[in-house]
């Protein structure tokens, strides 16, 4: 029972299907981004929506710990203040110092992470250097602010939150100083 034409037609169809599935793998990338955007998961380097209830809960202290790391690039990066006690609902501003110790201009992107992880959604960053890529000339030092409010809905058992930033190098980013502050991620 050999019908070469039918076999070849079947092979063509299946090959197209396989090629389509290869494309589908890449289609998962924008699809995943869209899902994260819609559900608000992974909203790490975008400003949070302003807090609705701005009442400061003075009855409660939460200690914030600030941590800073640089991964794969020769930057010195540290918080000005390492710990701080804050009330939920209070507007807080902290600063970080970063110095490019290397001998070439580099663009970096800071990625925040939280300990414990589920505290993340309650730390609402209104202003952050992590919203933009940062260009540092060789030897340049910058002081960069982070402004955040702890959401009043923070679970009662969370008394200590670590906010940790890691700078990664953005390879292939524009090194023109004019765009230094405007490079959007």
């Amino acid at each position, binding site marked *: *029972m*050999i*019908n*070469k034409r*039918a*076999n070849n037609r*079947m*092979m063509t169809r*299946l*090959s197209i*299907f*396989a*090629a*389509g*599935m*290869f*494309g*589908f*793998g*890449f289609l*998962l*990338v924008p699809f*995943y*981004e869209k899902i*994260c955007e819609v*559900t608000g*998961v*992974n909203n*790490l*380097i975008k400003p949070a929506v302003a807090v609705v209830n701005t009442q400061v809960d003075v009855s409660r202290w939460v200690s914030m710990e600030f941590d800073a790391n640089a991964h794969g690039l020769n930057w010195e990066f540290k918080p000005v203040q390492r710990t701080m006690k804050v009330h939920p609902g209070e507007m807080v501003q902290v600063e970080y110092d970063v110095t490019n110790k290397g001998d070439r201009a580099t663009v*970096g*992107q800071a*990625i925040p992470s939280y300990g414990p*992880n589920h505290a993340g959604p309650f730390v609402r960053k209104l202003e952050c250097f992590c919203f933009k890529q940062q260009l540092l000339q060789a030897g340049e030092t910058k002081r960069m602010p982070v402004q955040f409010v702890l959401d009043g809905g923070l679970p009662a058992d969370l008394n200590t939150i670590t906010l940790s930033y890691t*700078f*990664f*190098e*953005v*390879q*292939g980013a524009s090194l023109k100083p004019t765009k230094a502050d405007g490079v959007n*991620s």
Partner: protein
Amino acid sequence: MEAVNTHADHGHHDRGHDDHDHKPTGLKRWLMSTNHKDIGTMYLWFSFFMFIVGGIMALVIRSELFQPGLQIVKPEFFNSMTTYHGLIMVFGAIMPAFVGFANWLIPMQIGAADMAFPRMNNLSFWLLPPAAFLLIGAQFAPGGGAGVGWTLYAPLSTQAGPAMDLTIFAIHILGMSSIMGSINIITTLLNMRAPGMALMKMPMFCWTWLITAYLLVAVMPVLAGAVTMTLTDRHFGTHFFNAAGGGDPVLYQHIFWFFGHPEVYIIAIPAFGVVSQVIPAFSRKPLFGYASMVYATASIAILSFMVWAHHMYTAGMPVQAQLYFMYATVLIAVPTGVKVFNWVATMWRGSLTFETPMLFAIGFLFLFTLGGFTGLVLSITPVDVQLHDTYYVVAHFHYVMVAGALFSAFAGIYFWLPKWTGRMYDEKLGRIHFWLSLVFFNLTFFVQHFLGLAGMPRRIPDYALQFAEFNAISSVGAFGFGFSQLLFLYIVIKTITSGEKAPDRPWEGADSLEWTHLPSPAPFHSFVEPPVIK
């Protein structure tokens, strides 16, 4: 095709035809083979070789874990061993073994002369050795093998040494081989059946391969895409998985497991097929609930696309998503249960005998079901959060991969060896091989459940002192299991060289075409003229 035509001109009947079968000789016979039986043989030998390589890697792991502390290997090498043990066993041993079965059996079981695309079949096989060469050669790359785990998770894989690139290319090649093999199998099954061989009359093994081949065509390209993204992230400045560039490493896990969960069934479903041939033959009854078996297999395949995130409950997911993936996963137990009950019902009131293939099939039935149950335990999100990345998971998937897929492959090899070689294996040695495998398998993996429940993490070369006894038992079991497989090699070689002559139909309950219509050994060219099927 040429060979087929010349033989059709002869107009001979198949029986006794092998006398003037002219087959190519020497190295050419194998390098340029377009014969489904020779290619099947090569697949099976290749997979056995890779099984030994992957097994040696497993024994390196178990030697290091025999005692707490670091004794034998460096942690980097240990990580590389866990990685390549997994990759080689999955892509080099189990998958090619079942493709070997498919090549040997599908044309004979549906009454076709050969596979639909014999030359592509040759290419599918000969892509495997270069891929194996890359996987084994990766150990000698600067910095050693990539210790990233067989799942090749980002960001570790985007930062690993040059061995990672070799591994990625190996996966590309293996993927191409599997896709071509699957296209061949689907076309053969859909277009080349003998007249009268309706789809719902096909032996169960053919059905399971039809479904598996569709799974492969659907998901191997997705894996190829995932590793391509890893490759471009590594070398071409893309940011698919690089958080700094706006990517997300968790995305890799989603894409990988979109491939990875169907992959689990790509391994398990052909094993179901083999067992569905063996159990009826030794129960001397037709398979109970044939149609429900077909539908259950198809439902398992469809459901397998909808449950991938149960591998990543701890990666961070909204609770609603966790609930969905939990319920969907539990749902798979229903069609799987149908299959298990059908096998048991096939044996019910059958006139059972317990030759080696049947022993392995029953071993499969018990132990695969046990692995299925631990899978159900792991599918429950709150339990999984506790057990994620512990030895409980290792025990679970070795019950389905080793006692499931591998035992079923052993059952199949003992079952069809008389048809393939024309000689009987040594029944006594076969039974010894079964009992050694069964005992040592459980010695190795059963205790790992306890280790996992007690919190021992996987993929770490050292462990806390309280895990010492169970690890020692597990390592003893692993060496026993490994050496038992040398007995298997001896049995197969003994069968080929000096086995007793096998009758055409050594198992009276076996009723598919290769038993009823072909002599043993099956001639080089079979069913040149399609058989008549009632």
